[in-house]
């Protein structure tokens, strides 16, 4: 019997390819006998081939331009060029095809490639988007719909790949690089969208203040050819002229591979959410991410020890790529003073020391910022811990509870996440959420009842079609009420949406099979609600016992 073959479709950008590779590396360690391939866009995959070839057996490139080449503007020639690409040997006999991109193109591609098993989204012959596995259903319902997802993407990819063993994290063997007196900070002050990056002037202020206050810090600025102009705006600033000998400008001068190796010479890294943060993590560098605009701190943070994220507390943060915004309030709320002082403690202490920050930054700057430290939980899954004295928001508390519930429900993993002191307001919020959880549970029980009623009626010698119709209508009513609950309890929407996706993907060719599947989905949702209800309930009595507030573990 030949080697089993897993092929991953990753058609998104460079950063996503690195995150996929991080998950794939663990897969390789645990399953060295399985052939592992990746399909990626040529423009991204080729630039990262120096990293990909260490993890994947085959890198399969797809290029729109090459498919269109020589087609002479003729549709039939273009389609035969696609068919030729699809017929290559490496795309045949795939055991498991995993779509990690969740975009229209990757859904369609996933449908076209023949595979024994398919994970992630694909299209049905009726042109509906289908997703059958639970982690991809979670991505489709929670990641795509808003900032509800409590997991890092690398962990989600690992879960889709079925990687159980996470102990490589928990031994906590991370050590900072050899302590030299002079530290080198790698900076990537750019990002793929304006929303996600500061104006160059703000970075100029950060670099100026950092170099002025700390004599033993050198700076290396990184960026691509397309970022040269922004780089010059920073480096040609008059205030930085006296620090020229301590700044190295690499913007537009290095290939991605050279950038990667040059980053390895730095001691620390700071940047917006972009590829370079992920590359720095491959060198185990301590990283600080300045999260702005659409960036979701836990979801896309670089994956590794000593990772920090600074994010503004702006009400509309994080937004969606399509959200119109001309003012960028989140950029204003994250001040250069707060970032500079945080960078100092991050570089000097290899940690973010809040005592130092409280003394060095005015509350005016510090109060509009959240700082997170990311690292493994007891189970080896990646989680964010909020630093400082501030209470987590009610939503953050519920997100942690939801995470613990889902980790247990999906993988039987018992994660311990500590809940810092919570307030009376949060107690009220949790009580209200628990009321919503109870109502979802009750609806699921009705769903189970009516699904069971259909099955019972169908098993009669002469089933009454009218009765079956009535029960089916009742099930529709249950689903409509579920949608209404989602509107009333907005923070429970991820749970409701998740089960909506599960229900849409029900297995079954006839009314019996569909009713059986429907019963199982309602039952599954009931169990999730029970776990959530119990977890929230466990948090509430502790608070009552301690009066004003309390802390504990979930």
């Amino acid at each position, binding site marked *: 019997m030949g080697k089993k073959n897993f092929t991953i479709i990753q058609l998104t950008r460079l950063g996503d390819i690195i995150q996929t590779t991080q998950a794939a590396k663990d897969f390789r360690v645990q399953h060295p006998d399985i052939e592992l391939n990746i399909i990626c866009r040529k423009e991204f995959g080729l630039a990262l081939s120096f990293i990909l070839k260490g993890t994947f057996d085959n890198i399969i490139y797809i290029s*729109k331009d090459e*498919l*269109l080449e020589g*087609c002479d*503007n*003729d*549709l*039939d020639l*273009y*389609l035969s060029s*696609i*068919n030729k690409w*699809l017929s290559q040997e490496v795309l045949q006999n795939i055991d498991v095809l995993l779509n990690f991109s969740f975009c*229209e*193109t990757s859904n*369609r*591609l996933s*449908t*076209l490639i023949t595979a024994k098993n398919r994970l992630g989204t694909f*299209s049905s*012959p*009726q*042109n509906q988007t289908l997703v059958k596995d639970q982690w991809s259903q979670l991505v489709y319902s929670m990641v795509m719909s808003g900032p509800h997802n409590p997991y890092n993407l690398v962990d989600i990819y690992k879960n889709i790949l079925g990687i159980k063993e996470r102990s490589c994290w928990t031994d906590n063997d991370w050590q900072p690089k050899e302590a030299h007196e002079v530290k080198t900070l790698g900076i990537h002050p750019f990002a793929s969208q304006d929303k996600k990056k500061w104006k160059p002037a703000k970075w100029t202020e950060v670099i100026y203040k950092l170099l002025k206050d700390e004599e033993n810090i050198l700076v290396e600025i990184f960026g691509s050819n397309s970022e040269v102009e922004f780089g010059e705006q920073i480096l040609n600033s008059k205030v930085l002229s006296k620090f020229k000998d301590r700044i190295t400008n690499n913007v537009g001068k290095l290939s991605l591979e050279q950038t990667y190796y040059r980053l390895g010479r730095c001691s620390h890294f700071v940047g917006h959410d972009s590829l370079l943060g992920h590359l720095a993590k491959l060198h185990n560098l301590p990283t600080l991410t300045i999260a702005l605009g659409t960036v979701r701190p836990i979801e896309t943070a670089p994956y590794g020890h000593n990772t920090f994220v600074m994010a503004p507390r702006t009400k509309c943060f994080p937004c969606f790529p399509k959200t119109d915004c001309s003012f960028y309030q989140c950029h204003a709320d994250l001040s250069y003073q707060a970032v500079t002082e945080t960078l100092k403690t991050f570089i000097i202490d290899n940690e973010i020391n809040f005592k130092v920050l409280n003394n060095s930054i005015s509350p005016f700057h510090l109060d509009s910022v959240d700082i997170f430290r990311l690292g493994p939980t007891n189970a080896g899954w990646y989680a964010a811990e909020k630093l400082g004295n501030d209470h987590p928001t009610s939503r953050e508390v519920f997100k942690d509870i939801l995470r613990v519930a889902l980790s247990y429900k999906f993988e039987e993993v018992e994660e311990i996440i500590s809940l810092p002191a919570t307030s009376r307001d949060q107690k009220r919020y949790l009580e209200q959420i628990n009321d919503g959880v109870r109502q979802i549970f009750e609806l699921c029980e009705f769903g189970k009842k009516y699904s069971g009623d259909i099955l019972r009626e169908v098993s009669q010698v002469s089933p009454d079609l009218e009765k079956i119709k009535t029960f089916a209508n009742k099930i529709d009513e249950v689903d409509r009420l579920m949608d209404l609950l989602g509107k009333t309890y907005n923070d429970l929407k991820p749970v409701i949406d998740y089960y909506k996706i599960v229900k849409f993907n029900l297995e079954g060719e006839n009314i019996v099979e569909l009713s059986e599947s429907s019963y199982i989905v309602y039952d599954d949702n009931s169990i999730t609600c029970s776990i959530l209800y119990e977890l929230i309930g466990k948090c509430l009595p502790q608070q009552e016992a301690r009066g004003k507030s309390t802390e504990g573990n979930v």
Partner: protein
Amino acid sequence: MKDQVIARLKEVEEKLQLGLKLENEDLVFLFGLSLLKEKLNG
């Protein structure tokens, strides 16, 4: 190619409206179309 794409898309839409299953060649067309859309959107 634009006219060919419009005509082919119409065929696929008709099939879907009639509740027919899409053939492999239709799926290849839809994949090609999504790549073309990406190219147009930069």
